[in-house]
């Protein structure tokens, strides 16, 4: 009965299995592509924040309220940089990495672009303290943002940290790449099995 069924519908069964296999492999590929794209954005956002930290250290170390043009350029540049970081964060949301860093970015922007009040500007010792605080806080905030973003990425796209057999079956079984490979093997095996039944 099996032989009769396979001789009539064998090709359809094989085609069906191949389609399902193709879908699984396609899905796994999509996952890998998404991961790679998200990784690029994560890298870019990290480097933008690093730039912001670096320029903040340089700017606030040499801050002088009278250098108005220089201050204008730095404040504008930093505001635009934060807006760019925000739009990258929105893109990462589309990849399922929910950063939720809006308030952190407002705080970071304030650290970069909020100038000292006039009383502080008039007392050099106070201004020195203010500048030091700005440098330390902006660096701390920037690094904490980088950590948060990278942690969210790793949380969404888990890294393979142990050899295949060690994590078998918990992680591997759920891994789309593994499922695709396994399904491919089964399809090829079934295909040859059907062929051998038909030929015998």
């Amino acid at each position, binding site marked *: 009965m099996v032989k009769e069924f396979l001789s009539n519908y064998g090709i359809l069964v094989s085609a069906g299995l191949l389609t399902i296999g193709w879908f699984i492999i396609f899905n796994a590929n999509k996952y890998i592509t998404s991961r790679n794209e998200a990784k690029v954005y994560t890298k870019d956002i990290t480097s933008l924040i690093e730039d912001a930290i670096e320029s903040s250290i340089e700017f606030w170390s040499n801050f002088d*309220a009278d250098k108005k043009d220089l201050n204008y350029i730095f*404040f*504008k540049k930093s505001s*635009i940089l*934060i807006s760019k970081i*925000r739009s990258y964060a929105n893109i990462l949301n589309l990849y399922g990495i929910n950063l939720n860093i809006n308030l952190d970015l407002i705080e970071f922007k304030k650290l*970069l672009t909020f*100038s000292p*009040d*006039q009383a502080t500007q008039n007392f050099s010792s106070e201004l020195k303290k203010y500048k030091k605080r700005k440098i330390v806080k902006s660096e701390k905030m920037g690094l904490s943002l980088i950590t948060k973003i990278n942690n969210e990425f790793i949380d969404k796209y888990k890294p393979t940290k142990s050899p295949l057999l060690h994590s078998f079956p918990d992680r591997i079984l759920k891994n789309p790449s593994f499922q695709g490979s396994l399904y491919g093997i089964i399809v090829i095996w079934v295909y040859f099995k059907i062929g051998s039944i038909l030929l015998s």
Partner: protein
Amino acid sequence: MEALLLGDTAMAEVNLNVRDYSKDPFGRYKTDGEGNGEEYRIDYLVPELKKGNSLIIDLDGINDEYGSSFLVEAFANLIRKEGFKYEEIKCRVKFRSKNTDWLEEIDYYLDEVKKENQGRILLNNG
């Protein structure tokens, strides 16, 4: 301008566009140059609020971004420096923009002053 009569007081709703003040709002103090937050607060916002009017402030139409200095000095310092209460500002000053990040940022600065004031009250009572 829309007017609303409440008892004996006529309260008007005044629309202000930041772009009419400056396309490039920047800086805290008048000494920072054109388009600073202090001047906008003192010359544009406070007179209307002192008349008892409510404000609808349109933030759109500027060249690029708002810096923290301008936003804090113009809006949050209505509470710190002009003596308005947080609730009063929240009730009488509405912000409008297509960019929700700016609205969120202003809210953040207003909340910051609120927390500062609450902390001060706690310290005084303690």
